Each structure stands twice: as structure tokens, then as C-alpha cells.
């Protein structure tokens, strides 16, 4: 299974992304840019109350308005539950109950957006206002208003190992925490739209989505029609970070198009994107950690609450911090998912690791300070190393039952080729902490806990370090596949369902296929959004893309290559052993002899089967021929980041002065793409650390800052433009050409690094987001 050879010709090259010129010329079409013939425009009626039931709805005036093609209410829907990936949404498309201000209640299709808007206002609705609850602790109580039929609270997700009472006994120092996290908004640039069109009983849905396959599943569940009648065409997304997976407005568009008997486009406004789709959870960590005087963690005990809002249904926010700090001798982590009458919460980039993970980092830092250890050394001492046990195997519950049960069905003989399950297969924070600390000059710049290296009037400058980890895809909802076709002219077409959320996966998947086949990159084209041609995959989520989809792309290419070489051996190399043949630059030749006289271009091999009248095909189709080993049980990605901040202790203003991000994602398939992922994550994390948070109205729970004027994002001058990125040399035994996942560990590391740097500058820990007011308050000001 391992690939020793690291002499790659396409993998590892920082080639420009395939769609670069469409991107810089403005030609790329996102869903908002698409129009189809005779399409109508849809608008959604939104709930004005935090919790209410429709008792009467009269659409006659809306329907009578000139230019209106149809009005959709809960009375028109099949009443089936549907689920978005990872329980980011669970419920009915419309059921006449509003669970937060802004919830979807009905929709209108009309000849123009203006008329659709007018018609929405003409729908007469009477609501029975129901009692509501915004606070997750309140929502847990027995007598709380119930938001969902299933009750407000999910069974906790619990991971436990050892015996925390023992850990407590062995601890020589302990630290407790109680930390509350505000909610970050995806704050997408680019908004989104969905267009649906029916032809007979078949429907096509165009939208910007990272998860085409799962969206098709959602439409299937919500409408109760066969999967074969649903075609999702996922278009490129603007910035997404988990927002644009499968969303309820997309399914409303499908139903509305049916009602209106024509194609319908619903384009969300920026405010709708920020106030009606989803957001990061509000979260609260209570915890306790203990260690010995020489810095060995003996105890890690955390209880974490996440607020799912109206339709989120999660109980298991990633928390790969559990595995990363897995050297703790005894552990107990519990996560409780709770529904409230706030906007739905879902997985945003680095879910759990940006919150629970940041809490663990902070408490670990406080322990390190108590025992007088350097944060880099403390991390190296207590964070997991390759070959060590993953703690997630000790889960008591998770979304699909116990992880062990899930693995139990796997055939024994398959496991022979796999890394040891429930043990880390490769990578760690050790190398990246070491190389990052060296390059950053950590030893010289860190002056000790709570000590700035420079004091200049009210300005305090100091450095901080943080780490983050995440999975490299999770398989609980199905196995990922890909299809690779070799065309008669020797070009390759890859079909894999990852969508196009902008990080460059079309390019990196194509690099994997080109490398596996032995052709140049320009011979590879790729389709990532069409569910009629791409086999099922989770899509671009949970850092799945390079590890699991890339594995499938490589496996499918290898299968096509095997068939190609068998034909070549039989038809062109006098029945030679196919294993003795190789392909370089699109030419088949005896292994080790690329310049041999006996060499035939791929086209010629294809020609052999085409000219054979008894042949069964004119092109070759490959697909993975063995299952991928379960990535959850051994693969992780790691980030270690170093930051220098300046804090003005009078104004509370934080400036980021310098940044270094070291990343362990195994083989780097495209350094240009990966550095963007890493720094993009770091900036999004830094934004969450120092500014970003949604403001909920106390009376109604409505979001008060659902716009980019009031919801502040970092800008170019707010982040060090000289930021450096470094990569580890680790190599994964399963991932394509040694690569692993990448997108989510960097955001988590950044949050922890900035928080620690602010502590080192000021001597106080500030809860996120560290806005100027909070910094001043934490320093004892008013």
C-alpha cells in the first residue's frame, strides 16, 4: 500500500489552478450568475417570531397578483424529513412552524424578484406565537419550551479512557475553565442562488455547493422521489467554509419550481445568507486538566455544550483535540447538542476544534505556566505521535453508533494492508512545532508566560504559539468513489463529487490523476459537480477532499491504467506481463526504459481496442476496486502556528504583527494551493479570535449584524502580509502519494496562538472574540 517513490512529476508542483484565467477575468459562473430560459424568480416568506405556528394562511391575494406563477406553503410539501450532511439540518422543508426569526415559511415564484417580493407581502398569515428559548442551558431544563419533536437535547457524545479519578490523584497541579464562545458567521462573500427545473418527473438543481451527492440525497429524502430522477449540478461557490452544503432554500426552490411549472431561481440576499441559513454554534466549555510537576498530563475532563439553533442536530463537534492531546493518561470528554430558537447552527470550518480545541489549548497553557514549561515543549511532550492510540475509539456514542461497532463489519483480510486501526498513521505536531519555532525564533522572542518582549507606553508586544488538529474526512455516511475515463485520444476525464468551493480541488485531484496515470496535467479534465456523472462522495467537507476523494481518484486512475496496460501487453507487447510495463508522459514502455524503441502512445493502445470489432468499448473506465480503509481511525492533520501581537492596554486594540504557519498534511500536492488554504484558515481564525461574532436581539433572537458593515472581517492590512508558511515532510501510507487533509487544522491553531500571544502580552486570558472592550475589561478597566 505504501508508495516509496517520491519522485513525482506532477504531484508537488505549484501549478496554476485550472480555472485561474476564468477567475481573474471574471468569467467564472457561480450560481448567482446562472440563468435558464423562461425562469421565474422566487422569494421566501420568513417567520417574524422566534417560535410560532401558522394557524391560517391565505395565499389568494398573492396568487392573484399579475406575474405570480405559484405560491408554495407547508400544505404543498410532502411532509417528509430530510437531513443535510453531518446533521447540519434536520427537519421538514416547510412544516408551518417557525423556529427562529427568519425561518422559511412559504415561497413565491413570479416573473421578477420585485413582483415575488410584493406577493410575499400579500400572503396573509396568522400565527400562534409559541414560547421560545434562546439560552442553551435554559433549553435543557425539563420545563423548557420544546422546539423539536425529538426534544431539545441530543444524547451526549462521550469519549472516555482510563479513570479520571486516578488522573485527579496523580495530578500535582490542576486548572479549571468555564469558557463561553460567541457565534462566528460564515459571512460568505458571493451569496448563493439555486435554480431548479423539472422535465416531466425529473428535476435538475443548479446551485453552488460543496456536497453535490449529499444534496441530491437531501432532495430525495424531502420529496420522496427516486435518486435517479434528481440531477444536482453543483456550480463554483464563493467563500463557503461549510455554509453551502445542502441547504433548505435549495429544496424549497425544487418544490417551488414544481408548483410554478417552470424553472425557478431563488437568489439569497447578503442578509439572508447571514441571518437565515446557518452559523457556527454558540458554545460553552467547562473543564479541568491536571499534570505532574514535570508536565505529564494525567487528567483531561471536559464538558462542552453546543447550541444547534432551530434545525441543527449535531452532538459531536469534531473535537479532534481529544486525539491530539491524547497522551493525557485519563480522559473524559462529553459534548451536548441542544436546540434553541436561534438561527440554525452547523459545521463551520474547524468545527469543535476552534472552540473546545481552543479551550483545551488554553487550559494546557495554564498548566504549562504552573509547572514552568515552555508551550512548545509542553505540546511536544503531551501531543500524540505516529503509532500512538487514538482516543476517539473509546467513544460511548456517536452519530452512527459506537465507532468500534462501525468497524466490526470490516473483512479481516482487508485489514492486512491497512495501517493499524485506531492508531495515528503518520504526522504529528512535533516536526512542525520544532521547525516553526526555529524559523520564527521562538526561543529568542518568547520571554516567558505573561511577559511581553517589548513595552512601549501602553503598547505590549509578545508572541504566542498554538496547535490544531482535524480529521482527514470521515466515512460514516458512505464510501467515496470516483470514475476515471481514458478517452480514445488518450485524454483523461475524472468524475468525482467534490463541488468547487474555491480551494483548488479540481486542480489537485487532476494532479493526482495525472501522476497516477503517467500523463501530463493538460491531458486531464475533471467534473466535480454533476451527480449524473460523478459517483457518490461526501464532497468537500471534514477535510475529506484530498485524503478520501484523492484516494478514490488515484484508485480509479490505477484501475483504468491496469486495464490499459493489460490491453497494451496483449496487443502491442506480444503478451508480455502487464506488470513489466509503465507509462511516462502518455507513452507506454517497458518498465525502466522510457526511451525503448518499443514504445506506444496511449492513443495507439486505445486504437487497438477500437479497431477490434469484437471489442466491448472504445474507451476505458476505471473505478476503485478495493474499499478505502476507514480514515477516521488513523488519519489526522496538524497545524502549529506562531504569531506576534501588539496589544494597546489603554484601548484594548490588538494588532497582528508577524505570523508563521507550519502545516503537517503529508505530501504537498500543490504548494500554491496549500499555502492559500493554510493562511486562509489562519486569517479566518484570527478574525474569530479578535473580532467576529454575531449579535442576537435579546427579545427576538434575530441577528442584528447580518451585514458586512456591522459584522467585521479582517482586511489586507489587518494581517501580516509577510506571513510565512512551512510544510512538514511527513508521508502518509494511505493518502494519495502520501498526502493527507489540510483545510481545518490551520483555523484552530490560529485561534489558540493569538489567544496565547495576547495573554503573553497582557498577563490576562480574554474570552473570544477579544474585542477592544473585552480586553480592557479583562485588564480591569471599565
Amino acid at each position: 500500500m505504501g508508495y516509496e517513490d517520491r519522485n513525482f512529476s506532477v504531484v508537488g508542483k505549484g501549478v496554476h489552478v485550472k480555472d485561474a484565467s476564468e477567475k481573474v477575468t471574471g468569467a467564472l459562473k457561480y450560481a448567482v450568475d446562472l440563468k435558464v430560459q423562461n425562469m421565474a424568480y422566487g422569494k421566501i416568506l420568513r417567520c417574524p417570531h422566534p417560535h410560532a405556528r401558522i394557524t391560517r394562511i391565505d395565499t389568494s391575494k398573492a396568487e392573484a397578483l399579475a406575474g405570480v406563477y405559484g405560491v408554495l406553503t407547508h400544505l404543498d410539501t410532502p411532509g417528509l424529513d430530510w437531513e443535510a450532511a453531518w446533521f447540519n439540518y434536520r427537519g421538514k422543508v416547510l412544516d408551518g412552524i417557525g423556529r427562529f426569526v427568519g425561518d422559511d415559511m412559504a415561497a413565491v415564484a413570479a416573473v421578477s424578484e420585485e413582483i415575488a417580493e410584493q406577493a410575499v407581502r400579500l400572503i396573509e398569515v396568522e400565527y400562534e406565537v409559541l414560547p421560545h428559548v434562546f439560552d442553551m442551558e435554559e433549553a435543557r431544563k425539563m420545563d423548557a419550551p420544546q422546539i423539536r419533536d425529538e426534544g431539545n437535547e441530543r444524547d451526549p457524545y462521550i469519549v472516555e479512557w482510563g479513570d479520571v479519578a486516578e488522573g485527579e490523584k496523580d495530578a500535582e497541579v490542576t486548572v479549571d475553565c468555564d469558557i463561553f464562545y460567541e457565534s462566528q458567521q460564515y459571512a460568505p462573500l458571493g451569496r448563493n442562488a439555486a435554480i431548479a427545473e423539472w422535465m416531466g418527473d425529473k428535476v435538475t438543481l443548479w446551485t453552488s455547493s460543496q456536497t453535490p451527492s449529499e444534496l441530491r440525497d437531501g432532495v430525495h429524502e424531502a420529496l420522496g422521489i427516486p435518486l435517479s430522477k434528481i440531477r444536482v449540478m453543483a456550480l463554483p461557490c464563493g467563500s463557503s467554509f461549510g455554509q453551502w452544503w445542502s441547504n433548505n432554500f435549495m429544496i424549497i426552490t425544487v418544490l417551488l419550481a414544481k408548483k410554478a411549472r417552470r424553472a425557478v431561481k431563488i437568489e439569497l440576499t447578503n442578509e439572508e445568507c447571514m441571518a437565515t441559513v446557518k452559523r457556527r454554534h454558540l458554545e460553552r466549555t467547562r473543564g479541568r486538566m491536571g499534570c505532574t510537576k514535570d508536565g505529564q498530563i494525567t487528567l483531561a475532563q471536559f464538558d462542552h455544550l453546543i447550541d444547534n439553533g432551530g434545525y441543527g442536530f449535531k452532538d459531536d463537534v469534531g473535537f479532534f483535540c481529544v486525539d491530539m492531546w491524547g497522551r493525557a493518561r485519563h480522559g473524559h470528554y462529553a459534548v451536548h447538542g441542544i436546540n434553541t430558537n436561534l438561527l440554525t447552527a452547523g459545521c463551520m470550518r474547524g468545527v469543535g476544534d476552534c472552540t473546545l480545541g481552543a479551550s483545551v489549548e488554553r487550559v494546557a497553557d495554564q498548566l504549562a505556566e504552573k509547572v514552568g514549561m515552555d508551550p512548545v515543549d509542553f505540546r511536544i511532550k503531551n501531543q500524540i505521535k505516529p503509532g500512538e492510540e487514538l482516543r476517539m475509539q473509546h467513544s460511548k456514542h456517536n452519530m452512527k453508533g459506537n465507532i468500534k461497532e462501525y468497524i466490526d463489519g470490516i473483512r479481516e483480510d482487508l485489514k492486512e494492508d491497512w495501517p493499524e486501526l485506531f492508531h495515528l498513521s503518520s504526522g504529528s505536531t512535533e516536526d512542525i512545532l520544532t521547525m516553526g519555532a526555529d524559523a520564527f525564533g521562538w526561543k529568542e522572542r518568547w520571554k516567558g508566560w505573561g511577559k511581553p518582549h517589548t513595552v512601549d507606553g501602553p503598547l505590549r508586544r509578545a508572541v504566542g504559539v498554538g496547535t490544531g488538529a482535524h480529521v482527514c474526512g470521515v466515512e460514516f455516511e458512505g464510501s467515496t468513489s470516483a470514475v476515471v475515463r481514458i478517452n480514445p485520444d488518450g485524454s483523461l476525464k475524472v468524475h468525482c463529487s467534490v463541488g468547487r468551493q474555491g480551494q483548488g480541488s479540481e486542480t489537485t485531484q487532476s494532479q493526482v490523476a495525472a501522476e497516477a496515470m503517467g500523463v501530463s496535467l493538460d491531458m486531464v479534465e475533471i467534473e466535480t459537480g454533476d451527480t449524473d456523472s460523478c459517483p457518490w462522495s461526501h464532497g468537500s467537507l471534514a477535510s475529506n477532499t484530498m485524503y478520501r476523494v484523492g484516494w478514490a481518484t488515484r484508485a480509479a486512475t490505477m484501475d483504468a491504467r491496469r486495464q490499459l496496460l493489460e490491453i497494451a501487453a496483449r496487443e502491442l507487447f506480444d503478451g508480455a506481463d502487464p506488470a513489466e510495463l509503465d507509462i511516462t508522459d502518455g507513452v507506454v514502455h517497458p518498465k525502466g526504459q522510457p526511451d525503448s524503441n518499443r514504445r506506444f502512445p496511449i492513443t495507439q493502445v486505445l486504437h487497438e481496442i477500437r479497431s477490434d470489432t469484437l471489442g466491448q468499448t472504445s474507451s476505458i473506465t476505471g473505478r476503485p476496486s478495493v474499499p478505502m480503509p476507514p480514515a477516521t481511525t488513523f488519519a489526522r492533520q496538524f497545524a502549529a502556528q506562531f504569531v506576534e501581537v501588539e496589544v494597546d492596554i489603554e484601548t484594548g486594540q490588538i494588532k497582528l504583527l508577524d505570523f508563521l504557519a507550519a502545516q503537517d498534511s503529508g505530501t504537498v500536492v500543490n504548494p500554491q494551493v496549500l499555502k492559500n488554504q493554510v493562511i486562509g484558515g489562519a486569517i479566518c481564525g484570527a478574525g474569530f479570535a479578535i473580532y467576529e461574532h454575531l449579535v442576537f436581539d435579546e427579545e427576538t433572537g434575530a441577528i442584528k449584524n447580518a451585514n458586512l458593515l456591522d459584522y467585521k472581517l479582517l482586511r489586507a492590512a489587518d494581517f501580516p502580509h509577510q506571513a510565512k508558511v512551512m510544510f512538514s515532510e511527513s508521508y502518509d501510507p494511505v493518502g494519495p502519494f502520501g498526502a493527507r487533509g489540510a483545510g481545518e487544522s490551520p483555523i484552530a491553531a490560529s485561534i489558540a496562538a493569538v489567544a496565547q500571544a495576547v495573554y503573553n502580552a497582557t498577563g490576562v486570558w480574554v474570552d473570544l472574540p477579544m474585542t477592544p472592550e473585552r480586553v480592557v475589561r479583562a485588564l480591569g478597566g471599565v
Partner: protein
Amino acid sequence: MTTLKVNGQTHTLDVAPNRTLADVLRNELGLIGVRVSCSEGECGSCTVLVDGEPVTSCMMLVDQGEQHELQTIEGLGTSDDLHPIQQAFVEQQGFQCAFCTPGFVMSAKAFLAENPNPTREETAFAMSGNICRCGAYPYIVDAVMNAAEKLRARDGADRRAAD
């Protein structure tokens, strides 16, 4: 009737005066490179040049575009003949999803016309009227610095050719 001169071409349009310039450019003239995100002048993704000055077109009514030379991203290079700024964004990969990119390119064009030899600090500051949610900022700064170099070389060559 509204007359707009966009990318060197004149268009006479019958559009309601309450429509924004961004909306008309996108939906009447098909210039989808004018990206609209926030619709309130904050993100800069809809930036176009009005007589060379960067303007957020979501905040302009269509009639305010009359009597001016308008330029959108479509008025720069084409995919086989990229403008040096676009070329620099490709080379430095100053984007991920690229929803923000046309806006940044147009802002960069106006900025480099004013300041052909900027420092990195000046560039980062000048690019702060636009938002990139994907966080490509360091590479956007790289791209603009690289574009400045390309433009200086090109203009130097033009001058030499003219001499």
C-alpha cells in the same frame, strides 16, 4: 433612456432609474465579472472604474454612470491575453474562490496608476477597501507587487520603444 459607456462601447438602455449600476452591468449587459456580495459598499467585490477611479457599483444608481468612462474586469485582458495585473494574480495565486478577485484587480489597477512603485505596506493598506473572506491577503499583496513590477517593465519598454 440611459447611455452608458462601458469598456469602450456605448450602450443605450431603457432601465428604471432606481436600479443600481452593478445590477444593470450584470443583468442588462451580462458583465458578470461585476460581482455583487454585500450590496452596501463594504466588500468591494463590485468595484468598477469610473474615469479610472475605483467605485463600488452597488452603491451607484445607473444614471450616475452616464457621461463617464466605465471599466469593468471584462475591459481588461482576455483569457489568452491577460492584463499584467491579472497575470500577476494567476502567478501568485492571489485568490481561492475568486469571488473577490475582479474587485481586487480593479482596485489594484487604480492604485498602481496612482502609485506605480508602492511598498508592501502601502499595497496592503490600499487593498483594504476590499474583502477577501477566503483570506488570500498575503498573496494578493504579492500579486499587486508583482503586477507593479510587470507594469513598470511594460511601461519602460513602451517608453523605450517610443524614444
